[in-house]
């Protein structure tokens, strides 16, 4: 849901860009001869996706919309997995991030003015997108690089029994103090049989985000056996 909001605004931005490109459209002599009249070519901001339209098309918002729609349609055909976040959310639920609605209208210092609806929506949406990315890795042996077809959710549905709130703690079996990411890597290496991830690997960061998010509300209790 939230991810859709962001994509909708991305779409609007693309439409605006398409408008800009209309102004920069170039006449195409070859196409003109094929169609028997003048056409103009419009290129999307990716520099690759193109559509042609009659050069004498009326310069109205409706006409611009049509061109933008045609461009987006072409681009989506080339990028079929663009909705992976929404797709992931149809399969797996994530705990919602704090909405910070109580902060709307309150000042946050001279530089940025007061906190707006848009601010809190952005914070929540982006936080949740990070967690959705983690959900995707958590539920995919392929993303984790498992050599035996094992993913985290097979033992930890909805990240149950991962108890991130208990880290750092002395891990008796390892004889040292570990962080959540150390235990994630332990699982990746042993039950999952994959290569451990670097601490700043985007998959590790996403996994941590998902696991913490799923234990929302649990009191921090580091060191708990």
């Amino acid at each position, binding site marked *: 849901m939230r991810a859709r909001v962001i994509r909708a605004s991305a779409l609007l931005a693309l439409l605006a860009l398409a408008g800009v490109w209309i102004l920069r459209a170039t006449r195409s002599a070859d196409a003109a001869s094929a169609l028997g009249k003048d056409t103009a070519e419009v290129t999307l901001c990716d520099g690759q996706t193109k559509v042609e339209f009659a050069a004498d098309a009326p310069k109205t918002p409706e006409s611009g919309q049509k061109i933008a729609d045609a461009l987006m349609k072409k681009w989506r055909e080339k990028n079929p997995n663009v909705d992976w976040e929404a797709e992931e959310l149809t399969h797996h639920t994530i705990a919602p991030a704090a909405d910070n609605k109580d902060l709307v209208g309150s000042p946050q210092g001279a530089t940025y003015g007061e906190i707006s609806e848009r601010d809190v929506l952005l914070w929540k949406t982006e936080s949740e997108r990070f967690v959705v990315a983690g959900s995707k890795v958590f539920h995919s042996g392929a993303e984790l690089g498992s050599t035996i*077809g094992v993913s985290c959710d097979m033992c930890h549905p909805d990240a149950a029994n991962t108890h991130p709130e208990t880290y750092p703690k002395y891990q008796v079996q390892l004889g040292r103090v570990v962080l959540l990411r150390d235990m994630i890597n332990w699982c990746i290496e042993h039950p999952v049989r994959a290569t451990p991830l670097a601490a700043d690997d985007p998959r590790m960061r996403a996994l941590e985000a998902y696991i913490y998010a799923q234990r929302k509300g649990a009191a921090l209790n580091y060191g708990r056996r």
Partner: protein
Amino acid sequence: MKSVETKYLESREELLSGLGKLNRRQFMKVAGAAAGAALAQGILPPHSFTPVRVASAATGDAGGFRFAYISDSHLYTRDKNDRFVRGLLRAVDDVNRMDPQPDFVLYGGDLAQLGRPEELETGAQILKNLKAPVRMMVGEHDWYFDMGEKWRSLFGADNYSFEHKGVRFVTVNSVVEAAFWTAKGLTPAERMGTVAGLDNGTQSSFTVGDANRAWLTKELEGVKNETPLVVFSHSPLYKLYKKWNFWTDDAEEVQKILKRFDTVTVIHGHTHQVLTNRIGNISFHGMLSTAWPWPYAPQGLPEMTIQMSRPDPFDPNDGCGDGEVTVNPDGMVDKLYNLWNRNPVTVSRTYMKSNGKEDRPPKPLLASY
């Protein structure tokens, strides 16, 4: 700095060399004390010769019998994942070592992980090594790639019943899901992949379904109320936690069919844990998996359940296992969970009959988070 392993081996060495210094009298004293301590905790290793004799003497010779169970092996093919294959092999070894042999072995479903023919064939091949006859039950992981076609060709009907020593046994397919895949146009592999995810919310809830319920009713028509009844189903035939399908959506209707019998026991797979429930005349017992344990559901846990200890991730087989069921002459069962590398846990008929007041199984060493 010494590693944990080195420290452990050193202390072990010290203890063992100490034992060597004992004379016979001292040794008997130590051994006796150890055995005494084990007995005091009610620990009887289930599959060694002597204790089994003790156990069968305890149930009395006036009838009764035992069957073993193995469940939820979730096999990929051997070359893809040897770990799950070794789990099932270990269970087969456990059961083959039972002496006397059980009357039969129940396989509790989810033999395959992704329902592929070669996974089911791998499982069938391993189960052929069992000395006792096998009774098969189907799980969702066996079913949703080809809608049970391969499974049925290997093992026969998914619903069947039989009589054994005066007890009526019924195996019923309880993993029927409404077709969530048609509208979405999913391929068989995508459909199976969806069902294989326990926390995948795209799938539907498990049901026994109209057809199987009608079959069940008909199959039980001629059976007297006082005949002990044992039902095998993959999902628990009650409502525990919908999100993970620890749940059967038409459970109430199934329970209604079973209501007229004096003694009913449901043995189910799917939940991969020690799980106990009692609703009216029906006792419900879960089965352990040979592949991995599930965490307990965050809500809905039956009061009768005394949880198994939190599995140690550093012990690859912890929380897994197999087990056996002793059916007593009164039709009530003693359910033994043979947790690998741990003390076995028995949920006795006395515990069930007294609604949890007597003969309580041991509390977990470490509770769930």
